[in-house]
């Protein structure tokens, strides 16, 4: 059964992830606190995905320390992640959610009801029996979100959840993110879309070449960036 304690806040202390001589993350110190969504921005290769994987606990830092509510090495019972290209299990849409519910040891009697609720939440009602791998890209992304929410996480990580979606599908995902955050779930998401960071982010962290350049409330970062990189990135210049 699920652990009673929350995984939030998450603290990263001087975290580096090294692959050979390359630092995917380089001395990142940050604190993810309960509240509005945290949005990670930065160019490709900035370290956004690696940071999400660290926060999920999928990879261990080469240097530094990560703690979830003050504890190290916490099983991912209270957190969930949606990958940029989520893998669909070879089952129906409902079967994918049922699997996540079973993996999270959700009460058996309530699983069918939860599946209906979650599919409705992500706007996939009526597609219960459709094989998940036959859904469109946007539908798969929403199903992956429903699958993640089936775990009833208090920390939800989203890796560029709207990267290849059209505006309508993007809005659908953003609405779900807001609804989930309003229920008290801490959302951390990465995006390339500065507009989205403004719309969704309570606080925004800019990463570049594995380093955390600036982490501030969205209003502050977009109106009064403190660093040169942040000024240039927000002005639409290419950080290379």
């Amino acid at each position: 059964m699920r652990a009673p304690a929350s995984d939030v806040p998450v603290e990263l202390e001087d975290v580096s992830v090294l692959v050979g001589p390359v630092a995917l993350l380089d001395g990142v110190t940050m604190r993810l606190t309960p509240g509005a969504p945290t949005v990670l921005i930065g160019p490709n290769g900035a370290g956004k995905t690696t940071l999400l994987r660290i926060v999920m606990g999928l990879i261990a830092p080469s240097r530094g320390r990560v703690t979830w509510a003050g504890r190290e090495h916490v099983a991912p019972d209270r957190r969930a992640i949606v990958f940029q290209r989520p893998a669909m299990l070879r089952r129906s849409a409902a079967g994918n959610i049922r699997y996540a519910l079973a993996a999270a040891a959700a009460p058996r009697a309530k699983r069918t009801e939860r599946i209906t609720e979650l599919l409705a939440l992500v706007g996939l009602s009526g597609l219960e029996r459709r094989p998940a791998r036959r859904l469109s890209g946007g539908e798969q992304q929403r199903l992956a979100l429903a699958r993640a929410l089936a775990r009833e996480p208090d920390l939800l990580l989203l890796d560029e959840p709207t990267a290849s979606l059209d505006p309508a599908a993007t809005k659908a995902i953003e609405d779900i993110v807001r609804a989930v955050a309003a229920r008290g779930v801490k959302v951390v998401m990465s995006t390339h879309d500065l507009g989205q960071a403004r719309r969704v982010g309570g606080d925004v962290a800019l990463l570049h070449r594995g380093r955390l350049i600036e982490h501030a409330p969205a209003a502050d970062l977009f109106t009064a960036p403190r660093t040169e990189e942040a000024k240039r990135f927000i002005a639409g210049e290419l950080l290379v």
Partner: protein
Amino acid sequence: MDTDASALHLVLTGDPGLYAIVALSLIVSLTALAFAALIGIPLGAALALVRFPGREAVIVFLNALMGLPPVVIGLAVFLLLSRSGPLGSWGLLFTPQAMIIAQTIMVAPIIAALTRQTIEDLWAEYRDELTAMNVGPSLRIATLIWDARFSLVTALLAGFGRAAAEVGAIIIVGGNIDGFTRTMTTAIALETSKGDLSLAIGLGMVLLAIIVAINAFAWGARRLGEHFAG
């Protein structure tokens, strides 16, 4: 022409001798396939997921076993089961059980090797999701086997094809005893050498028809399953 006509006559009139041979062939090969699947699928899945020193050598060895000549397997099982062999007291030599043992040994590496490859590919796709869902090792293996089930049918077909087609192993350990251990392939070999081509051709036709029918059935089942499960 006469030979062909009498072969067809044997098949169409349901010649009891011919059908006893067909039935025994199917019982031996399908039983061996079932045992080989019970051994090969979990073994292949474990080999795909568990990392240990010497794993790659085991994979190379397993792949090499796929090409093991049936007569060599027959000889090894013969030596095991012969009166003076380590398992001689079981009294299994020249019985259908001995043939099942030989074919199981022949087919299990094929199923294990193909399962290993299939599960390893699927694991590469599922690894992040299952790790993020905190799925434990036994459920992980069960999930991968279940989700790869349509691909694993191909592994089973490959195993069945090899078992149903081989003659070298079962003729050594079964002895080709009329009415007891005579199968389609051993009978074809014997009848051809005796010059009774009509029975040999009749059996050949039946053997081909069975293999085509089983493959068609498996293909249909696979397509149907994919339609519903993706």
